């Protein structure tokens, strides 16, 4: 006989905060957003209901091109973050002496004690035309006159990778800790080279960590507003900025809500495709 599900006092006590959180902070606002996104207003201010706000997205090339651009850059940033974070995580868990591991993790965490805004401004002080790096390069005679390093896509991607490093490194560290060193030693004994070990042992073992790190980094990058806006400058229209513009600059909350929903749906879609391609299950990845 299957166990019946009883509603007991402790269950209610423990479940209430979670349910309140979910309903008040996530479900209700989204229902309201959905309602707004289906509201259509014409030039005279007459209200009707329909999908016109969503159709606008597909009809107007600036909107979907910006979205494609944002998604492609986010995937690129996620991959680059992985490439940078894997050696770091490997060094911390496998190479460094155990008593330094805590210290190294600390170094990794330290930049995140200050807010993202401050870190981005820090990069801007370093990279701007009258900034620190240009100053040294011209002093040393490497450059004859300072060059502008801010306000292009390369700087923006670098800033985004920097911002999301931690969220990739931490899951990788925890997943690599469970990798038995003897597997790597055995592979060396059997004559495998570094490449084979990386692709046949380390990466397959780290896959759940890689996927969960990637999901977090991808989501954070896709939804980032500060970094593209401040470091990307004149050429960097990010999709979040368009949502902001619809809400704040053109007072078109209905269009903005539709964009918000499209961002939610399309980013979920990208993650679903990513899970399918890497043959991972969401339930395993989020553990």
């Amino acid at each position: 006989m299957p166990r019946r599900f009883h509603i007991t006092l402790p269950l209610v006590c423990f479940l209430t905060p979670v349910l309140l959180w979910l309903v008040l902070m996530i479900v209700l606002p989204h229902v309201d957003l959905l309602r707004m996104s289906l509201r259509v207003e014409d030039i005279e201010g007459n209200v009707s209901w329909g999908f016109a706000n969503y159709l606008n997205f597909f009809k107007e090339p600036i909107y979907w091109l910006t979205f494609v651009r944002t998604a492609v850059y986010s995937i690129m940033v996620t991959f680059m973050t992985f490439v940078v974070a894997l050696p770091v995580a490997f060094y911390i868990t496998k190479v460094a002496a155990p008593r330094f591991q805590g210290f190294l993790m600390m170094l990794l965490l330290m930049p995140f004690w200050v807010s993202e805004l401050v870190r981005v401004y820090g990069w801007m002080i370093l990279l701007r035309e009258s900034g620190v790096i240009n100053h040294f390069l011209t002093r040393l005679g490497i450059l004859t006159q300072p060059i502008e390093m801010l306000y292009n896509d390369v700087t923006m991607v670098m800033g985004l990778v920097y911002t999301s490093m931690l969220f990739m490194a931490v899951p990788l560290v925890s997943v690599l800790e469970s990798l038995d060193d003897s597997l790597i030693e055995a592979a060396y004994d059997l004559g495998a080279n570094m490449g084979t070990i990386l692709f046949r042992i380390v990466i397959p073992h780290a896959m759940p960590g890689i996927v969960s790190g990637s999901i977090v980094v991808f989501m954070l990058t896709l939804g980032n507003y500060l970094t593209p806006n401040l470091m990307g400058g004149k050429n960097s229209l990010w999709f979040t900025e368009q949502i902001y513009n619809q809400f704040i600059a053109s007072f078109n909350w209905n269009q903005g809500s539709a964009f918000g929903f499209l961002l939610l749906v399309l980013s979920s879609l990208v993650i679903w495709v990513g899970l399918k391609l890497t043959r991972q299950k969401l339930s395993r990845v989020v553990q």
Partner: protein
Amino acid sequence: MKRTLVCLMVLGAFLALVAAPVSAETLELLTWKGYAPKELIDKFQAETGITVKATYTNNEEMIAKLRATRGAGFDLAQPSQDRISSVQAKYKIYQPIDYDKLKKDQIIASMLEAVKKNTLVDGNSFGVPHVYGTSGLVINKNFAGDAKDYTDLLDSKYKGRVSYRLKRPTLIGVAFAMGKDPFALYNDPTAYQALMEEVGQKLIEGKPLVKNYWTNGDAIKESLRSGEVHLAMAWEVGAWQLYAENPDIDFVAPKSGALGWIDTFAIPAKAKNVEGAYKWINFMLRPENAAVFTNDQKYGTASKGAVNLYEPAVKANFTRCFTDADIDNIKWYPPVPVKLEEIEGKILDKVKAAQ
């Protein structure tokens, strides 16, 4: 004896608790950075016992905040006069101003009338003029001494040294410099859209010349100060602050007219401390207080007689940068009809997305 003492103490504590909310009367002010100098907040508290809590923001966020709460959470807001009537007609976030509660003899009459007219909705007016200023060109005389008009922002001579905001004033300034009158087309959305398309095209062509589109006042000041930018479209006050540090940087009223704005006082629909709001309005427009504000922030105000109390250097700014002809040529923003922002928003997105 001891017991009465305890009784008295308990009574005293109780009275203090009851009295506390009265002495802690507050005024929630939604305003622009710099519009509530600490000196004046302290003076106001000493005079009336009201503590002013200021939240700093801009026009768009002000409207969004009040719209989200349907006009609650703040006792007084300071939107620009051209952004009140259409917003009020649609979202009803303000309450009518009772002009009898204002000390009218300390307000410049022509400005009060203009703002009353421009914020009129269904027979009620919703604004009291406070601060005015203009946007125009800020130049570094060593490099851009001969820049005269908004079209110079699109001149290849200044490649990589130009900066402006990607906001509606830029579209309107460039339209005026092209010899058009965008304000005359405010009530003709189709013609306005065509004009804005044209302006947008110009801005896209001029995009390679732009260093960056600035978004905050401190950032553009830093760019001008360090010499990274030689020519910018910005407010005169930023320019005057830089002029005080380096006289090579100064404001120029463009040939086709500086764009004039007036920031107002407007009372949100669900304000809690309406009396306090009127007190603050009358306090800020009292000549000696308005002069403190102007000497600190450099902006002019609608206060009558404050001019005589300006510091000489502050007064000199006005005479140096604005001839009488320049003042007559200022294009004051008329109220923005609904839907224009959407047209402009699309054009601005296009410019930003163009490669």
